[in-house]
């Protein structure tokens, strides 16, 4: 008697929905076991990371702050991944988007007017898109794998940020600190719920997801992304250019990552600082997959991952869990999700020895 993976006739619809939920539950169980074995309070860690942010009402605003950039980036990534274009350098596009938007912010710092904020946002999107255009060009022109180029460029972006903060971007009044000026009132996202830290980027994230959902289901462009991703030959037969799709997928995911970056600078951070990169671009990869590459699923997944991030901070303080523990939980979640995805398409069957074809 042994077990064999067998392809299902049709992917199970029920399991498709249950897989992300199951992955999260398994993460909870395995996480508790692993951290207990490591000598921590495993059950307590799980409680603080997964439960405390949900049942503590004053933590909800933290969730909104963390989830907004994750959702905006992950929506762009799910468009890219659906087209089989593997942009894993959203972190770099996020940073360059913030750099571009901040550039406009520095120039307009002493001015006033309603137009400044949209201009900074546009600059952020343009910056992210421009940074993503490098891998797009290399992929289309020279067939260079975009997984490598997007990832490598995300490291380069950190050095670009460091250089700019050390020199041209540095605020004259920063007393030597590598940071830009604080953004003015006309450059900062307004708070939308009085008495909280929830800013305009939270509703913007929802709107971005809704627009993406509409584009996916109602526009030829969304159709094109789906066809190119699932059946490239059929896409060419239908008259969709694979090269153009690669360009669009990278430009859009880059623009949204850049948009998230500039919103983060204009919102929670308020200026550009050395500690600006917060791994949102990498964490959003988990969010995109956990949300089944569906814009509305990404909203839920963004909130779920935000819970672990906020909970991780809680656990650091209350039970002294190292910060890296959050990364372990998030990685486990992605790993288990991808693993459970296999069960959506395949199933285990026991086979007797000897009845297998030689």
């Amino acid at each position, binding site marked *: 008697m042994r077990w064999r993976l067998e392809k299902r006739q049709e992917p199970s619809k029920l399991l498709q929905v249950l897989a992300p939920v199951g992955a999260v539950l398994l993460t909870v169980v395995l996480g508790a076991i692993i951290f207990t074995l490591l000598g921590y309070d495993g059950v307590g860690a799980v409680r603080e990371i997964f439960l405390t942010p949900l049942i503590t009402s004053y933590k909800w605003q933290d969730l909104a702050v963390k989830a907004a950039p994750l959702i905006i980036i992950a929506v762009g990534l799910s468009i890219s991944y659906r087209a089989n274009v593997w942009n894993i350098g959203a972190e770099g596009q996020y940073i360059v988007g913030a750099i571009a938007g901040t550039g406009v912010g520095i120039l307009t710092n002493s001015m006033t007017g309603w137009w400044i904020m949209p201009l900074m946002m546009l600059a952020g999107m343009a910056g992210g898109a421009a940074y993503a255009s490098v891998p797009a060009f290399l992929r289309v022109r020279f067939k260079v794998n975009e997984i490598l180029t997007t990832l490598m460029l995300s490291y380069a972006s950190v050095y670009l940020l460091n250089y700019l903060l050390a020199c041209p971007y540095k605020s004259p009044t920063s007393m030597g600190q590598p940071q830009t000026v604080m953004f003015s009132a006309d450059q900062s996202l307004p708070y939308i719920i009085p008495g909280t830290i929830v800013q305009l980027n939270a509703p913007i994230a929802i709107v971005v997801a809704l627009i993406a959902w509409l584009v996916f289901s109602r526009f*030829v462009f969304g159709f094109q992304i789906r066809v190119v991703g699932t*059946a490239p030959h059929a896409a060419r037969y239908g*008259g969709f250019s694979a090269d153009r799709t690669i360009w669009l997928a990278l430009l859009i995911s880059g623009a949204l990552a850049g948009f998230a970056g500039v919103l983060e600078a204009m919102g929670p951070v308020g200026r550009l600082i050395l500690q600006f990169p917060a791994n949102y671009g990498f964490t959003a990869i988990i969010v995109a997959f956990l949300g089944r590459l569906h814009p509305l699923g990404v909203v839920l997944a963004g909130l779920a991952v935000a819970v672990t991030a906020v909970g991780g901070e809680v656990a650091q303080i209350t039970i002294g869990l190292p910060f890296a523990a959050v990364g372990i939980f998030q990685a486990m979640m992605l790993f288990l999700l991808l693993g459970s995805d296999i069960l959506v398409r395949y199933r285990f069957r026991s086979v007797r020895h000897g009845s297998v074809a030689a």
Partner: protein
Amino acid sequence: MESSVPQRLELRGITKSFPGVLANDHVSFSVAPGEIHALLGENGAGKSTLVKMIYGIMQPDEGEIRWNGQPVVIANPKAARRLGIGMVFQHFSLFEALTVLENIALGLDMSVPQRELESRIRDIMQAYGLKLEPHRIVSTLSVGERQRIEIVRALLLDPSLLIMDEPTSVLTPQEVEQLFVVLRQLAKEGCSILYISHKLNEIKALCDTATILRGGRLVDTCDPRVETSRSMAEKMIGSSLKTIVKPEGRTFGAEKFVVKGLSMPALGHFDIPLRDISFSVRAGEIFGIAGVAGNGQNALLLALSGEEPVADAAAITIDGEPLGTLDAKSRRLKGLASVPEERNGHAAVPDFSLSDNSVLTARDRRRLAVSGILRPGAARKYTGEVIKAFAVKATGTEATAGSLSGGNLQKYIMGREILQRPGVLVVNQPTWGVDAGAAAAIHQELIDLAAAGSAIVVISQDLDELLSLCDTLAVINEGRLSRSMQVGEADIEEIGLLMGGIHGEGEAVHAVEA
């Protein structure tokens, strides 16, 4: 006397099921020593499953296999070969970079010294007139020659039952004749042959007995020499065959679709470049392109459909308008529709609903999308029209393309293109892997579309299909297209030689060309 000799192979109540399908339902028949026994049925009738159980690749759920009168369990192909069962598969398993001899040695169950093996191979080739050079590299051989390697490999085991799975689907008419000579000689020496095919005239010419399967069940065992092709076809499909109505004395309009000096470099490593292809199709005419698989048919379809635009705009024209440099979408707007050979993942997206598959190619001509916005209602309506007009068996417009059987999916795809009323339609293998009923329906639709004034190009490896369907015919070989011939005047012998090209039958072709 007859009763004292046990049957070579006897199947009793063989049943095999897979998740969702009953592939074989209590099938019983027997093959006598020296008999050429046809196993006849449409795609999906259960022929392959049955044969896989005889060759030990699968085990029956129920039933008994008897070999020379003794019940046996054939655990694996090696056990089958030990009993004396040889098999020549439809798809060969040969290493391109190795020689004929090396390939045969690799396929043997025991190791034989090379010199001894070579002399045994030469003996077999001598005895059966199988022309083959043991030291040639396989990649330089034609499909017919490759099949001979597989036959020699099977004959080395001195089999008393040889299974041939659709052996003629890749051969020229001349190669088919040569194969039949070998098979008849084998049978005369007492080797039984189980011959799997759906080509009725071949079975009539070759076989002593025919067992007909339909939907996994045995329908009839008959003598193909006294049956007509039509009566066997009707048993095979289970209903009476619709006769194709081709209006007599049709007149053709002006030259509509003209291809002139079309060349294209090879797309991939093992692909064939197109070399200076020229032909023209008049309005109302059906133009056939015959040829053995792998001679540039796929590349030609890609070049004509616009999936691979060419540098020379004037190489492809409709009504004089050049469109060689346009992509598939733009060519469709100019009235050029196409259907590639591969249904899943090329002509249709298996994971998408039929409605979405309609959007794939009909979005502009049938306004299923307007200024970039999809119109799902219109897509469903158009898909419904296709399903109705072409009698597609599907659960509805939202059924996934992958859930349809091959024949039904092909009917849907053909319908999707034909209802767009294209001025020019190019199809590759329109009835490949399609049951006879669906094939007849597709042929009729093509004829009707031509009668309405469209120019049609049919690329097919099935010569019988082209001869019954087309008005004009040319042969593609090694990426070159022969001159066009009127189907009424075409000489099968010459077409066969053109299909063989410079491969194998080299001298003969030069004689024709001279």
